[in-house]
C-alpha cells in the first residue's frame, strides 16, 4: 500500500509531445490563407533583398539612367532599344528596378523600426505590469499621452525638426509605435502576472528579472507576435506616407512612398504607371502581412481552438 502508484504516461494521439513553436507552425501550415500570405510576403521580401542582382538597372547609378528615356509607358521601347516592362519614371529610371529597390527600403524601415519599437514596448509593458507602482503609473501616462496624438502628426513634427533620412524615419516609427506595444504587452502581462505559476516562481525565490524574462515574457509572446506582424504593415505605410509627403527618405534613396509621390504629378496626364505600380507593390506587401497577422491571431486565440 505504501508504494506510490506512478501514473503511466497518457497514451494516444492527443498527447504527442510538441514544443509550442512546433505546434504553432503545424497549425499555421494547415491554414491556406496564412500560408498564401506568407508565401507572397516571402517572394516579395526575397525579390527586395535580391534587388541588386535581379533588377535590370541600378536606379542609384546616375550613369545608367538616361533622361531621354523619361516617362516611357510600360512595354515601350527606348531609343537605345531597351524594353521597360513597367515603363520608366520622369528621370528615365526603370520602374521594375525602382520598385525592387523601393521595396528594399520600405521593408527595411518597417522591419527595423518595428523590431526596435517592439523591444522598447516589451521592456516598458513588462516592467510596468510586473513592477507596478510609480513606474507603471508614469510609463502608462506617457503611453496615454503619446497615443492621444495622431501618429502621423507626431512623426511629421519629429521629421520636420530632424530633417530627412532613412535613420530618422526609423526613429520616428519607433517613437510612434512603441506605445502601442507597451500597452498590449502590459495588458497581456497583467493577466499572466496573476496566475499561480508566477506566484510559484516567486515562492521559489527567483529574481524579478528571471520571473519577467523566463516566466512572464514567453507567455506574453502570442499578442506580441500578432500585433507585431500587423504593425510591420502599419510601419511600412507610415514610412510611405511620410515619404509621400516629402519629409521621409531622401530622393537619393527612393522608397515606395517616394516613388508614388514622384508619379503623382503625372497621374492626371495619363502616365499612371509611375504612381500605380509602386502603389500596387505596397498594397500587395501590406495585404500579405495583414493576412499573416490576422491568421496568427485566430490560431493563437485559445477560444477559437478546436
Amino acid at each position: 500500500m505504501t508504494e506510490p502508484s506512478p501514473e503511466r504516461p497518457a497514451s494516444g494521439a492527443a498527447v504527442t509531445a510538441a514544443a509550442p513553436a512546433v505546434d504553432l507552425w503545424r497549425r499555421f501550415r494547415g491554414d491556406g490563407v496564412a500560408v498564401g500570405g506568407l508565401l507572397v510576403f516571402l517572394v516579395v521580401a526575397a525579390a527586395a533583398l535580391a534587388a541588386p542582382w535581379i533588377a535590370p538597372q541600378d536606379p542609384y547609378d546616375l550613369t545608367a539612367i538616361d533622361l531621354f528615356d523619361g516617362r516611357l509607358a510600360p512595354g515601350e521601347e527606348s531609343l537605345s532599344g531597351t524594353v521597360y516592362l513597367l515603363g520608366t519614371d520622369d528621370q528615365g529610371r526603370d520602374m521594375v528596378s525602382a520598385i525592387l529597390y523601393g521595396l528594399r527600403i520600405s521593408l527595411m524601415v518597417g522591419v527595423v523600426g518595428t523590431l526596435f519599437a517592439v523591444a522598447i514596448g516589451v521592456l516598458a509593458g513588462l516592467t510596468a505590469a510586473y513592477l507596478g507602482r510609480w513606474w507603471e503609473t508614469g510609463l502608462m501616462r506617457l503611453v496615454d499621452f503619446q497615443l492621444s496624438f495622431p501618429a502621423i502628426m507626431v512623426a511629421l513634427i519629429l521629421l520636420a525638426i530632424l530633417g530627412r533620412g532613412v535613420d530618422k524615419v526609423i526613429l520616428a516609427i519607433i517613437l510612434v509605435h512603441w506605445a502601442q506595444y507597451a500597452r498590449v504587452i502590459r495588458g497581456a502581462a497583467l493577466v499572466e502576472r496573476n496566475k499561480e505559476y508566477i506566484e510559484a516562481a516567486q515562492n521559489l525565490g527567483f529574481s524579478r528579472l528571471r520571473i519577467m524574462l523566463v516566466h512572464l515574457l514567453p507567455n506574453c509572446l502570442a499578442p506580441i507576435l500578432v500585433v507585431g506582424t500587423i504593425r510591420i504593415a502599419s510601419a511600412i505605410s507610415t514610412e510611405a506616407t511620410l515619404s509621400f509627403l516629402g519629409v521621409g527618405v531622401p530622393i537619393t534613396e527612393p522608397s515606395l512612398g517616394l516613388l508614388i509621390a514622384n508619379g503623382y504629378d503625372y497621374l492626371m496626364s495619363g502616365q499612371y504607371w509611375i504612381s500605380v505600380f509602386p502603389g500596387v507593390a505596397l498594397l500587395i506587401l501590406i495585404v500579405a502581412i495583414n493576412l499573416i497577422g490576422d491568421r496568427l491571431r485566430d490560431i493563437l486565440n485559445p477560444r477559437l481552438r478546436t
Partner: protein
Amino acid sequence: MSETGTPILALEAVGRRFERSIDMAERLLALFGRRPDRRTVHAVDSADLAVAEGEVVGLVGESGCGKSTLARIAAGILPPSAGTVRFRGRDVAGLGQTERLAYTLQVQMIFQDPFASLNPRQTVGTIIGEAPRVHGLATGPAVAERVARVMHEVGLDPSLAGRFPHQLSGGQRQRVGIARALSVDPRFLVCDEAVSALDVSVRAQVLNLFLDLRRDRGLTYLFISHDLSVVRHIADRVAIMYLGRIVERGPAAALFATPTHPYTQALLAEIPRLSRRRRRFTPVAGEIPSPLRPPPGCHFHPRCPHALARCRDETPALRPVAPGRWSACHLNDQA
C-alpha cells in the same frame, strides 16, 4: 498555545488589507471636493496561528474568508500589512537576503489550479529543475538526477520530464506542482485547496501522497481547504475562518466532535455525508456577506441562530475555552 517549543511558523496578529487604488479621474474629482471611495478589504484581520514542526494544521473557510490570503502570507508570497510572521522564532520581515531565501525555499506552496500553476511554456523537467539549478542546489547532470528523484517520489514516471503541462492529466499536473516544491527540499508545505480541483479517485491518490511525504520527509503542513471531510482526515489541528477572522481553533478530533462556535456548528452540519440519506435539508440562514462590507461586531451575527444584542457591536476575541481550544464567541462567556 498547547504546543511546546518554538513553532516552525507563527503568524502573530497578522492582517492584510487590500485597497483599491485611486485613479486619475478620482484624484481630479477629489480636487473638487468629492471624496474618493477608498474601498478597503480586510482580507485577513488579526489572525493568530502557530504551526509546530511535523504538525498538520487545517485551515477551513468558505469563499472570501481570507484563507488563501493567509496562505500566501505564510508562504512569504504576500507581505502582511499588520502583524508579524515568525519562521523558527525569527521575524521574517527582518531577515537578510540569504536568510530570506532560505525561509522562502523552506516554506513551499502547493496551488489549487493544476492548470494555472504550471508555466505552460516550460517542460515538466524545466519546471521541476529550474529552482535547484538557479539556486545552485544541483549542477550539471545532478539537476536531471534530482528531477528524476522527486518525480519518482511523487509518483510520476521520470520519462514525462520532456512533456509540457497541457499534455498531462489534472492529477499528473498536481504531482508536478508538488515535485516542483519538493525540488528545493522544503520543511513546510502550504497547500492552498491543493486537492479541490481533482477528481474523487485522483484526490485520494494525492492526499495519500501528502501523508507519505509527511512520514518520509517529516514535513509540516498548513492545509487549506473548504472541504471539511478532507481537512478532518489529514489535519492534527484545525482553524476555522469566517470573513477574515479565525473564529475557532483546536485539535481536529475535539473540534469536529464538539464545535463551540455557531459558524463551525453550521458548517459541520452542512458537509454532505455519504452516510446521510434522503436528508431533509435545513439551511443556514442568509448569504455570506461581502468582505467589502462585513457586518459590525461578530461577522457571523446576521446568520447566527444564537445571536445576542452585543454580538452586533462587540467583536468577540479569540479566547481559550478548554485546553488547546480557542473560540471567538460571546456565548462562551455565558456558559
